[in-house]
């Protein structure tokens, strides 16, 4: 024991703060959650490992952290380049909101909007769930976050990692780590958060509703949709132009049927590379001294609230719509409006089958699910447009 003890004092083991240790444990917990529970592993594994890497105490004078950014300094008459750390160059894509649109490109090239096209009224459920975004925004203001911070926190309710990162980078970069971690944590915890709310707000009869099989959608509809939907949404909310431009561009690559190789690369190599770099560097940005703060706890609290509200919003709006419809919607499907694709759609399927094992809601739930992605991108665009102008 003596040998080991003497040695430890000479290494970095002793200079590690308590906060770093906690963050490393959180990182390992994320990885464990991903492996054991299979919750959003493509994001929790990179983020978790990033958190472990980012919390190794480094030697003074070495540039290693994501926050050791490059700069230009004037020395005499010359402007000299001061290099940044390797992780800071990777984090640049997070910091400048570059990775989220590229991930949206890949998501667009993956997503089949058919079920949404075959039953357009379900789109409105994806809109209703965005109430989580705006109520959380108000909640954050109430807790004395400023407008920009509140906007970035509110978007956690969008249940969409790239959107949350994009908006945080623009409005409140100092909260980005906490917001991203909150968003991905709750997306991973969707199977835990949503079912009780869904059961609370629906009767057994409602949960038993079976929905009509969706109609076939023609190729032309699928080709026209990304262009038309892009024009409609961004002319209404121009702030969403980057996220939705890439999402619908990716979908057009898929549905045009003449650019299959580009769609294929967008949804495989390209999105994977960006996911690796984004996840790892977001994780590495959660250094104890910037992350373990009272705000982060508040953000986590607000994030949980926002998921709950969004779920409730979707379910209740489905019930409201049923007042006007003869072909009733199963209100469970409304919970998928929060997005968290495809987890929340799977949760709908699961909760539905607990009442009636022969009720297949998954396909119906995909419609509000993808509509929720569009909805929260619009919400992000609106918040960005309104709050970037405010300089108060």
């Amino acid at each position, binding site marked *: 024991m003596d040998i080991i003890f003497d040695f430890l004092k000479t290494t970095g083991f002793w200079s590690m703060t308590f906060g770093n240790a906690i963050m490393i444990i959180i990182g390992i917990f994320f990885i464990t959650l991903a492996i054991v529970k299979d919750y959003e592993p493509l994001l929790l594994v990179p983020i978790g490992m990033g958190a472990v890497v980012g919390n190794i105490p480094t030697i003074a004078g070495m540039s290693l952290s994501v926050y050791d950014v490059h700069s230009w300094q004037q020395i005499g008459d010359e402007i000299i380049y001061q290099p940044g750390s390797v992780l800071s160059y990777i984090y640049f894509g997070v910091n400048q909101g570059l990775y989220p649109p590229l991930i949206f490109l890949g998501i667009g090239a993956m997503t089949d909007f058919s079920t949404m096209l075959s039953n357009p*009224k379900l*789109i409105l459920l994806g809109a209703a769930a965005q109430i989580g975004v705006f109520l959380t925004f108000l909640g954050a203001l109430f807790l004395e976050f*400023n407008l920009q911070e509140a906007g970035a926190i509110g978007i956690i309710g969008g249940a969409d990692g790239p959107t949350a990162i994009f908006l945080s980078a623009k409005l409140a970069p100092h909260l980005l780590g906490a917001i991203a971690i909150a968003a991905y944590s709750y997306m991973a915890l969707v199977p835990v958060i949503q079912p009780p709310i869904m059961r609370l707000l629906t009767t057994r009869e409602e949960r038993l509703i079976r929905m009509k099989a969706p109609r076939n959608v023609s190729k032309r509809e699928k080709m026209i949709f990304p262009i038309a939907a892009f024009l409609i949404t961004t002319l209404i909310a121009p702030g969403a132009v980057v996220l939705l431009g890439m999402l619908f561009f990716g979908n057009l690559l898929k549905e045009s049927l003449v650019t299959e190789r580009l769609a294929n690369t967008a949804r495989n190599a390209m999105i994977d590379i960006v996911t690796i770099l984004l996840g790892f560097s977001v994780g590495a940005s959660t250094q104890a001294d910037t992350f373990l703060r009272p705000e982060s706890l508040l953000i986590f609290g607000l994030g949980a609230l926002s998921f709950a509200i969004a779920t409730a919003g979707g379910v209740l709006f489905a019930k409201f719509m049923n007042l006007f419809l003869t072909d009733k919607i199963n209100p469970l499907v409304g919970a998928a409006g929060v997005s968290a694709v495809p987890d929340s759609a799977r949760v709908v399927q699961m909760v539905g089958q607990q009442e009636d094992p022969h009720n297949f809601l998954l396909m119906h739930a995909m419609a509000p699910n993808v509509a929720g992605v569009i909805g929260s991108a619009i919400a992000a665009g609106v918040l960005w447009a*309104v709050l970037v102008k405010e300089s108060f």
Partner: protein
Amino acid sequence: MIIPFDTDTDSIIHHAQRLNSLMPSHFMLIIPQDLDHGISIAISGMLIVVFALLFISLFIAGLPRVLAIVAKVWPEVDTHHGKASSPSDSLASEDDAIFAAIGFVLHTEFQKQLQSESNS
């Protein structure tokens, strides 16, 4: 409840707010300004989201009928479409009812919102 913010950009404003918060008369004047502004942002934001997705809904609901006309002039190679158009019609008529209802509520709300903003 006071949270320790230390980001440079916000510090001045927050110091001002903290000073003000010591004076009870100002407390109710300054903090709610953000919140009040926030409420109007939240309402218009929610309305824009709903409008945008409602427009997409309406567009999608109408698209098969437009394409059915186009298909007569310029037929699509595969035959999915012909089968699709008839059931969509019945769906669409029901959609029309619900869209009209929601559209009316939204319009009314939106007008209220615009009025309250122009008054403040």
